[in-house]
């Protein structure tokens, strides 16, 4: 399993994302923002950080990076894509996922371990979880408030496309306590919290996040 991990100028969490891939017995393949090909990877992770300094809007400039043109094309053919934190913002800006992420409602940068409920375990990235399992992973973001119009929210809820929901209070003003969503085909997932920081009890609060990367292994092997 070859998993591309994109680095934009300002990306922070590419190293941990690559480490998480290796923990799941995958091969992490470094992709640079200026690359015009995806190096034959089976899936792509758009990691967290502050791509292009979050100038204009978080993810707004990364969306136009050469490598994202390839990601959008590959996603259209069903390649699994995961966006974490800033990566989620990039996927929304690229219209691979609906909605947008906005400034946290109380303006504070939130940095803490956060409980999430896995409400959809039929995506390419969540099959290893039990439905409604609760997992504890770090959340660290200043613009994590998920926003979408009413019809989009109704569609996401109606189709079971809310994958992760915050448990124990809404940390950032996200509509419907949404922490992560998926595309209609269940191949693209974006979430604000950081499963790649919770793959090993030595370095994270839990190893609850590892299931994301093991799920991908199953999805790629069965494809």
């Amino acid at each position, binding site marked *: 399993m070859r998993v591309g991990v994109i680095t934009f100028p300002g990306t922070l969490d590419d190293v941990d994302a690559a480490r998480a891939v290796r923990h799941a017995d995958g091969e992490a393949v470094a992709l640079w923002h200026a690359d015009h090909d995806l190096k034959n990877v089976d899936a792509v992770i758009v990691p967290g950080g502050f791509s292009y300094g979050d100038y*204009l*809007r978080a993810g*707004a400039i990364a969306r*136009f990076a050469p490598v994202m043109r390839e990601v959008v094309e590959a996603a259209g053919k069903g390649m699994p894509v995961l966006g974490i934190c800033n990566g989620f913002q990039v996927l*929304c*800006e690229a219209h691979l996922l*609906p*909605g*947008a992420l*906005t*400034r*946290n*409602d*109380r*303006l504070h940068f939130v940095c803490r371990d956060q409980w999430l409920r896995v409400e959809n375990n039929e995506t390419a990235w969540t099959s290893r979880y039990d439905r409604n399992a609760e997992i504890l992973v770090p959340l660290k973001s200043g613009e994590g*408030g998920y*926003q*979408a*119009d009413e019809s989009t929210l109704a569609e996401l809820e109606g189709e079971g496309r809310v994958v992760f929901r915050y448990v124990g209070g809404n940390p950032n*003003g996200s509509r419907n306590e949404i922490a992560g969503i998926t595309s209609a085909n269940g191949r693209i997932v974006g979430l604000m919290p950081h499963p790649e920081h919770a793959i090993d009890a030595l370095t994270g609060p839990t190893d609850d996040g590892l299931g994301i990367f093991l799920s991908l292994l199953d999805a790629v092997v069965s494809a």
Partner: protein
Amino acid sequence: MARVVVDVMPKPEILDPQGQAVANALPRLGFDGITSVRQGKHFELEVADDVDDAALAKIAETFLANPVIEDWVVTRIDA
């Protein structure tokens, strides 16, 4: 060359915590009577004469603003 201004504002139904924080600070600073503040972005573009309104609208809609959460207005400023 022409000067073009693009104003980008959060949609009315979108919570604007930054604007609220400014509004909440005003009374503390002794400025009373301000009931609401919305915070947006103001872009000033120097534009060649052959850039038409459709191109400017596309720039605003696809890049300077995110239409999911923001409204935008393009204004040409006469020299």
